[in-house]
């Protein structure tokens, strides 16, 4: 990272910006224009207060699960969620929080891993489970009718995120 506005604690990747603009053959941009554009972009990508609140709440929850007394997992006869599962859970929460999609609950799963619950406008629940063995999948229920609407495994986390997004916007 470099830039001449570093004195004001504003830094930007000048080469990256100039390169993308060069591709569009816009060579006329001055360093100041580039810097201001970068600052605007950073502001756009900053999480809102609501996003920050929910992110903090659920990241704290993940941290709590990670630092839980091992006796809890021994008593419950379940495995502690692995580092990989905690990372993927964090990735899921973060990616969806940007889209203003926040979990209802986050708990260790009885199936060894993490269970993240989302709700949509129809009051349907989606339980997204990330397992220690590397598998993940979700189940959607209608709690009023006590019916299962959908139950699916995924090969890639991005497919799961897209499906969760579609569920919440349904």
């Amino acid at each position, binding site marked *: 990272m470099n830039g001449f506005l570093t004195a004001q604690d504003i830094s930007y990747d000048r080469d990256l910006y100039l390169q993308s603009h060069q591709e569009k053959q816009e060579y006329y941009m001055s360093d100041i224009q580039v810097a201001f554009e970068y600052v605007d972009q950073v502001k756009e990508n900053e999480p809102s207060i609501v996003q920050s609140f929910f992110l903090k709440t659920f990241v704290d929850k993940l941290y709590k699960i990670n630092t839980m007394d091992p006796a809890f997992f021994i008593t419950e006869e379940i495995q502690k969620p692995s580092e990989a599962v905690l990372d993927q859970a964090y990735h899921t929460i973060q990616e969806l929080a940007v889209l203003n999609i926040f979990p209802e609950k986050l*708990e260790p799963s009885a199936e060894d891993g993490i269970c993240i619950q989302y709700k949509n406008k129809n009051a349907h629940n989606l*339980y997204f489970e990330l397992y220690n063995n590397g598998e993940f999948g979700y*189940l959607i229920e209608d709690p009023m009718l006590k019916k299962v609407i959908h139950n699916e495994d995924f090969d890639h986390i991005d497919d799961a995120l897209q499906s969760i997004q579609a569920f919440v916007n349904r």
Partner: protein
Amino acid sequence: MFTRHKPLTEWAEGDEYPNFSSIKITKPQSFNWSAFSLPIWVRYTDQKEYKSDYGVVGYRVGTLRYTNKIDPAFENFTFDVRHDPLENNFSHCELEVKKSLSKKDRRLIRITFKHKCVVSIYPMSSPSKSQLLVDYVRLMYHQISVRWSL
């Protein structure tokens, strides 16, 4: 068959049922046989410690055994319940898993068990005297029917 769930982590305050994430079907899952136990007795641990804030739910044995009703893809007796009396708990039973299932199938069975469970005692609450009386009458009725069938 009665089983207990820890408040908050396994059964959130205000929720009608225990959390889906806490429904166990593959690990040693203990129950109290309703022919020999009141729902409130499930709150006692094997060390005679009373967990006053735990919630208690009941399952019909048929729900656990006849999984074919959940989905025709599952065979009946994928699960069974074995009476396994303990020193301090004659009614103790264990869920036995007879066939291996994928995570997807297990999710389906777990949610069905959640849908079919009957709430006996909500977490952080105590049953009223009239409820205890009803539970006692049910216990007696169940005990007579079990002894009659033997």
